[in-house]
Every structure is written in C-alpha cells, then in structure tokens.
C-alpha cells in the first residue's frame, strides 16, 4: 500500500513539474497525452505493487503470430526429414 502511495505522490510531483510549463505555451494536446501516459504508467506500476496479476501484453501478439510460426515449423520439420 505504501508503494502505491509513493507512486501516486511521485506521479503528482511529475505532473506539477511538467504541466505548468506546457500550460504557459498552451500546448493542450501534449498535456492530454502526457497525462494519459502518466496515468497508464502509474496504474500499471500500482497494480504491480499490489501484486494484482496483469496479463502480459505479449499474449495477443503471440496469438497473432502463432499461425505464422506453425507454417515456419512445418518447413523446418520438412527440412530435417531429408
């Protein structure tokens, strides 16, 4: 729990360092993206700190690639049989 509080405090400090200078030049788009990414980062790290299982982002990637891998595997087996 302490780690989560630390992460949140750190995120707020980071936001306070960057957002005022961005507000001064009225760069709203950067502020939105910056805050969104910071939120994702803080959420991900808090979930890790609380030991909540987050599925690996590689799982969908591996699912997309596995048909391709099967084709390659069949080539490899064909090659070793010779």
């Amino acid at each position, binding site marked *: 729990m302490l780690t989560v509080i630390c992460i949140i405090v750190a995120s707020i400090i980071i936001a306070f360092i960057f957002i005022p200078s961005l507000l001064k030049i009225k760069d709203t788009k950067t502020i939105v993206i910056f805050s969104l990414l910071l939120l994702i*980062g*803080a959420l991900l*790290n808090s*979930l890790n700190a609380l030991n909540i299982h987050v*599925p*690996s982002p*590689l799982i969908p*990637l591996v699912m997309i690639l596995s048909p391709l891998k099967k084709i390659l595997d069949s080539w490899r087996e064909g090659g070793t049989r010779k």
Partner: protein
Amino acid sequence: MNKEMISSRQFTIITLLCSIGTAILIIPASITNDVQQDAWIVASIGVIFSLLIIKLFITLGKRTPSFTFPQAIEKIVGKFFGKAINLCFTMLMLLSAGELLYFIGIFMKTEIMPETPSMSFVLLFGIIVMYAAYLGIEVFARSAEILFPVFAFIFIVFVLCISPQIDIGNVQPILEASPSSMVFSTIRFMSLFSFPLVILLIVFPSNVDVQESATKGFYIGAMIGGVVLVTVILLSILVLGPTLTSSRTFPSYALAQRISIGDFLQRIEVIMAAMWITTIYIRMFMYFYASVISMAQVFNIANHRPLIIPLGMISMGLSQVIHPTIIESNLYNQEYWPILATIFMVLLPLMLLIIAMLRHIKAPSN
C-alpha cells in the same frame, strides 16, 4: 531548438555497443540449443549476411537524409499509413525496452542478488535511461564514448583470462547440424544482432555530422560487434561445451565464473558483468529513445521531453509483467521475436525503400 549532432566516431561506437546489446547475454544459449557446437559458424554466417541488412538500412536512410526514421515513414507512405505504422513501431519499441529492463532485473536477481526484488534494479536502471533520454542524444553519445574503452578493456581481459581453459575437442565434429536448422539459427542470431540496428536510423543520417564516414562507421561498428559476439559464442562452446552452454540461461556469465588464474585470480565475474550491463544500457537507450521520438511523431508533438517520464514508467511497469517466467521469455525470444523482428525491421524498411523508389523520393542533390 538546436538540432543535436553526434560525430561519426561516436556513431560507430554506438553501433558497435548497440549491436552487441542483449545478444551477448542470451544468444549463446539460444543458438547452441539448436545447432550445438556449430553455433559459432552460424554466428559468423549471420555477421556476414548482416552487411546486406545494414546496406538496406543505409540505402533507406540516404533517401531521406534530413528526417528521422518516424518522419521518413510518414513522408514515404503518407500521413495516415505513416501514423499507423509509427504507432505499431512505438508499441514494439516500448515492449522491447520493457523486455531489456526485464533482462537486467532477472539477470541481477538470478545471478547476483537473489533476495532483492527485480523491480529495484529495474528502477535504478530505468532512471539512468530516462535521464539520458532527457539530456538528449548528444550527451548519450559522449557517455557511450566514455563507456567504450571500459568495455574494450574488460572484453580483452575476459578473453585473455578464459583462453587457458580452451578445450578444442568441444567444437568437433564441425558442421554436424542439419542445413535447415542452420538457416533458422542464422535468422535467430541476426534477429538479435543486426535487425534491431534499424533503430539507429533515428540518428542516422539526420543527426550525424559527416555522413560519409558515418556510413563507413555503420559497417565497421556492426562488424566489430559481430566479431565480439562470435568470440563470446566460440569461447562458451570451447570452454563450457555445447551441452552446458545451451542449458545455462546466461552462458557468458557462467563462462566468466570459470576464470581462474593460478588459483588466485578468481570470482571476477561481477566485473565481467559490467560488459553486458554497458551494452544493454546502450541498446535499452536506443529502444527507449526510438519509442519516445516516434510517439512524439505520431501525435505531432514538437518537444518530446515531457513524454520521457510517463513512457519510462510504462516500460518499467511492462518489465514486471512482460514475461511471467524465464521459460516464456526464452520461448518468446527463440520463436516469436525473430518473426516480429523480420516483419518490422527487415520487411518494413524494404517496403519503405520500394515505395520511396516508386514515388521518386530522393535526397536533394547539391
């Protein structure tokens, strides 16, 4: 904002250390598993074929000499497809950065400090990389220049200290592996060695001062990096033997543990570990910097610096969730990463080059 420039010598050093990257730590195990004692032949073939890949990167880079890679993508394939490709590229780079942090964490945790959570190493390492990204490529290039002599010195000491234990019988019989497994292992080797060099297009040629000598430096850096990797693979096979090399997670570290000169100079493997910590830092920075630059390009953000800390936090979080176990990490690096790297780091530049040729996008000749 002034454009940051690095010299061609700095670029050569970055190429050298970046091509070694994580490969020095994991590649001996992953290719020895498949082709046993012929791994060093596979690696040598891979290094030679890598010249072609680098030729491709350079040809693509020279087409758009004043743009970084994400800008070049948008210029070549147009705004809509360019943004889509850049977004995929950012995701891939961010995942790879997370993976490299995972490697640092798991290496320290399994080999050196087993009771410390890997997050503490990841945090320390991540802060250094974020700081380097914040200071920019110029400062990073100078740090690479400082780290290079240290790396070279440790590598030479490493080779000299381990060479008395060479047993030449370990590489025999030569050429026992089947041709198809050699082909697959070559691709596997190249996917960790030369394919990731596409990220150097972020700095080449737009941020390099003398392009002619930087082109030469690209080849020379990659070649020396290849020689270092072949040496490490050859030494692991010669000293540890193919079976032990393939069963260890980090064979280079196991190799360093074997160093023993006159029963006096022993247990210096932690000093040797500085070697791959250096190279992983360089490659990690390049991945991370690439993800920041292309993320800024996707959303048309002029100043990329505010994105560094949030993306750094995400990659540190990713390092904890990306591979639940080391077995899954090995499986991913052996089976899926080569496919992914071939698609994004060879076929994508090739496709970009063909489109650039068809659309007559060329460097302004003067």
